């Protein structure tokens, strides 16, 4: 499961721009991942400038 480290996220939208499943919802200071849509392709983790996303078991 992809998890967000809330204290690291800057809400820049880089992850949203590469998400092929449209599984990320970005608000001004909140980010939500739809785990039903997410295929764990890891593209969002790769582009995050602050490494705010991680795989969590």
């Amino acid at each position, binding site marked *: 499961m992809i998890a967000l480290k809330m204290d690291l996220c800057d809400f820049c939208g*880089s992850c949203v721009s590469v998400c092929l499943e449209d599984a990320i919802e970005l608000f001004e200071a909140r980010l939500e991942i739809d785990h039903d849509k997410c295929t764990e392709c890891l593209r969002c983790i790769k582009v995050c*400038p*602050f490494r705010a996303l991680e795989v969590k078991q």
Partner: protein
Amino acid sequence: MKQFYDVIVVGAGPAGSTAARVAAENGATVLMLEKDREVGIPVRCAEAVGERGILKVVKIKPEWISTKIKAVRLFAPNGAMISVQHDDIGYVLDRKRFDYDLAMMAAKQGVDVMTRAYAYGLLEKDGFVAGVKFRHLNYDYQIGAKLVVGADGLESRVGRWAGLKTHLKLQDIETCAQMTLTNLDLSSSHCDFYFSKQWAPGGYVWVFPKNKNSANVGLGISGEHAAYKAPIEYLREFIETHFSGASALTTVAGGVPCAPLMEKIVANGLMLVGDAAHQANPISGGGIVTGMIAAKIAGEVAARAVNENNVTEKRLTEYSKLWEKNGGNVHRRAYRLKEAVYKLSDHDLNRTAASLLKKTPEKHTIVNIFKTALMQHPKLIPDVLKVFLG
């Protein structure tokens, strides 16, 4: 707020505000929605622009300018420095003021502006986009419109809702980190660029002065490289080496589409502008001017189309075609150059700098710099000329 508008613009950055203002100036009723609490912040931008480009869209106000740029300097991996000969005047903007004023100018033309208005879907009718679903504070709204303009930046979700492919490939996003540093000793106002796999693989580092002792120091790297090491780590190392002891007034992340020309930026009842339409220059990553030029065209076409009650995709391609002539054609060539330039090794870059330094300083034009760097790619020279000389 009305129950129905001619045009709803999603996103109040420079492209959104320009499209909204121009559409209103040409007679359309317009609503502009911004998800954040305030237009203009946070500033996820290095803030540099060329005067010639901005003047195509708007008269520059002195309060928008932080610094007038005196020189542009490029640093090769080995530290060799080339001072670029150029005739355009450059500015480092105060994006907070700039974005705020552009939205204010739109409001002055009658555009209804709402902040903290979070768009989460589109209304559709008979195969046409017909409005926007959004949440504002505690209430949900479904407001109808003849035409929706997606100016929602990098995320570009409005386009996806209408079926356009706006997702970026990893090699087509520059993922960025920036700090505005202070307590620097900047003797003169020049914009510096550092190229090296060590500091920014598949991208570059920028140091753009905000005043005599502060600068935007940031970098962008290709999304492919970011998988191995995050931009913020590269930035930490660069600052430790070059500006050790400086204080950081802001720290931001960001992403820039440095992508191929998007062939389809309109659909029935929908247009995309700015970063949402991947209109940032794929070599420089600069997206303010290109986005605003496209948005001005989009605003004009939008007003005409809603006035004619014809917002079919076919009708709206007037916008795509005019953008092709006023930026799209250059974009296509710039992307080819980007692909070649980012394949150059540090050794190639050092050799380029050495070769340029043998020539007199007045030969260090941007065209000559690219010609020298791309010596092994003679087929790209027409692209160099077209991109930098127009």
